[in-house]
């Protein structure tokens, strides 16, 4: 390994990268745009636009509606005067939920009967609907409980104090803030995207331009050439990591619970995997366009299988097995483990070992193929 040659190539790559303002802007801004978008879009399903058809128009029905509004999950946007209005609002998308209170609601309560209240939800988006429905259920239950207690008191009976008191604790993310979970995931995803694309473009572009031939005919070894090209990319990767991390901490208030040093060290392992992958693709593809299409075959499934959106534990066995072949899976576990849970090597060593294995294999294959392609 001749370090002078490695350094010569690295200097050339630095110059070319920073001279190309558009690429610099894209590489530096894209991660931030992604973090901001995911960070805000991941906020909870709240304030669902709701249309109300209150046929009762009594103090009792208003009391119930207040309870719905106080849950913060329903926000009343319109008042219906017929069932037709409710259907139209939900069909048209101006409302995602409809609440219908029957005309005899108050009377039934006074008669100690069970009034029926309808909550209809647009369940096209099952996740959002599930939240709305369970909140509606909870609102109903707590209203019922209050009514029972009041009626017992009215009847001169002391309400019993039996029942199970379930005390819930949300560990690691007590505020149950979705962005605490999503933002570290975006960090991993962005790293994968940036590194594969940059390594692809630095090699395929050079081949397209015919300049790779010039380098190959010089005495530089393929290992030196690859390393020289990767060093600047690793620096860019660390710059990206730092900006995303600063954004996560100071903008989204995502606390870093664990060791930042460990995070920076493990990211290096992930760089090896992703840079190797980009190089591998560029030894297969003939043009940059081809390479970007090829890499999608890997990036798309890896995003879906890694647990970035869908938890790996909830996957069918075949897909869960497939997720073990996605390096992002390990890196996500590591990043979330360090940032959210604050755990260290004692729990993450298995993922770190597997990620290292991945990096070594992918990078070695890439170097070998790179050498062959020169031919």
């Amino acid at each position, binding site marked *: 390994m001749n370090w002078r*040659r490695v350094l010569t190539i690295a*200097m050339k790559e630095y*110059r070319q990268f920073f001279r190309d303002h558009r690429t610099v802007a894209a590489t530096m801004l894209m991660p931030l745009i992604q973090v901001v978008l995911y960070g805000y879009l991941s906020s909870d399903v709240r304030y669902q636009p709701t249309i109300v058809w209150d046929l009762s128009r009594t103090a009792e029905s208003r009391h119930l509606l207040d309870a719905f509004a106080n849950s913060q999950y329903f926000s009343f946007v319109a008042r219906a005067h017929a069932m037709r209005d409710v259907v139209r609002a939900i069909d048209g998308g101006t409302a995602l939920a409809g609440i219908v209170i029957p005309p005899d609601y108050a009377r039934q309560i006074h008669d100690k009967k069970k009034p029926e209240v309808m909550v209809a939800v647009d369940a096209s988006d099952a996740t959002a609907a599930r939240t709305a429905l369970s909140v509606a259920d909870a609102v109903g239950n707590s209203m019922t409980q209050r009514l029972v207690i009041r009626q017992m008191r009215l009847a001169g009976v002391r309400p019993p104090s039996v029942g199970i008191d379930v005390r819930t604790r949300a560990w690691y993310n007590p505020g149950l803030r979705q962005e605490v979970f999503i933002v570290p995931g975006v960090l991993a995803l962005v790293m994968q995207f940036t590194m594969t694309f940059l390594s692809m473009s630095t090699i395929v572009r050079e081949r397209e331009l015919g*300049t790779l*031939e*010039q380098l190959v005919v010089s*005495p530089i070894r393929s290992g030196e050439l690859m390393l020289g090209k990767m060093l600047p990319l690793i620096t860019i990767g660390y710059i990206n990591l730092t900006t995303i991390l600063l954004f996560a901490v100071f903008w989204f208030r995502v606390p870093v619970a664990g060791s930042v040093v460990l995070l920076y060290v493990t990211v290096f392992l992930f760089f090896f995997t992703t840079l190797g992958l980009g190089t591998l693709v560029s030894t297969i593809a003939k043009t940059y366009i081809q390479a970007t299409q090829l890499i999608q075959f890997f990036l798309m499934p890896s995003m879906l299988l890694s647990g970035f959106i869908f938890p790996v534990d909830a996957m069918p066995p075949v897909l869960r097995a497939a997720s073990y072949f996605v390096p992002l899976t390990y890196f996500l576990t590591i990043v979330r483990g360090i940032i959210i849970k604050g755990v260290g090597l004692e729990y993450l060593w298995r993922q770190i070992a597997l990620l290292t294995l991945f990096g070594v294999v992918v990078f070695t294959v890439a170097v070998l193929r790179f050498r062959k392609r*020169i*031919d």
Partner: protein
Amino acid sequence: MSGDLSVHVEHLTRRFGAFTAVDGISFDIRAGEIWGFLGPNGAGKSTTIRILCGILAPTSGTATVLGFDVARDPEAVKLRIGYMAQGSSLWNDLTVEEHMRLYAGLFGLSGAKRRAAVEEWTARVGLTEQRGVLAGALPGGFRKRLALGCALMHRPQMLFLDEPTAGVDPLSRREFWDLIVGFADAGTTVMVTTHYMDEAEHCNRLALIYGGKIVARGTPSELKRAPDAGVTVEILSERNVAILDALDGVPFVRSAALAGASLHVTVDDRRDVDGLRALLEGRGFDAGPLRDVTPSLEDVFASVVRSP
């Protein structure tokens, strides 16, 4: 192998799938000469040069460059040669000086040696004033000179130039050739491919390649006098183009091409000149005297390629 041979090629073949790009060629290049490789696009010139530079493996046959087998020891070859590839071999987003520094670094120069080499070669290819200019902003002739400077910086014993003057204006081509001849005089062996026949006159010896095979070889004057070169006559007529059309497909006419204001026609031998005259007169052309001329390399090439 003889010590004063820079390149020795025997039965060299390279196939790409079913296509044979180079078909069992053999040739030698003597130390210090300018050796030209002529042929149309796709004839196998670039493939041969790539093999000799150690970046493409031969399918069969052997090639040694400066005493090293290119298939077995390509790195030893790469250290000692300079190579200027066809087309753009520059980084448009790097300056002249950055190119020079890059090549100096790749060949292991550093510190004061590197600075001196960069300065010397920038001056030798006449780009000192353009040192801070991006390669992408340089005109064609300057680009070629920059590429040449890069290829020569490490003082190679052997220089491979693949179509070095393609797409360059005539004046820049002449300047470029002055540089090449200068380096050859200083002892560097040069192998150059071109399809500009006039440039071939600069070569000490040359070979014509067509369809992967060498179809003729020798010094420029040998080639022009070769017995199988046929007889070339000059027709001076105001109806050159019409005559050219009329000669198309005539069996004994090997080649016919406009050469300035006249028309050069190469026929198989002396007797065919009379046949040519008869044919022209029969079609109503005033053929004039049909003077013998020394064929240009272009005539030679066209005639060699046409003859069976």
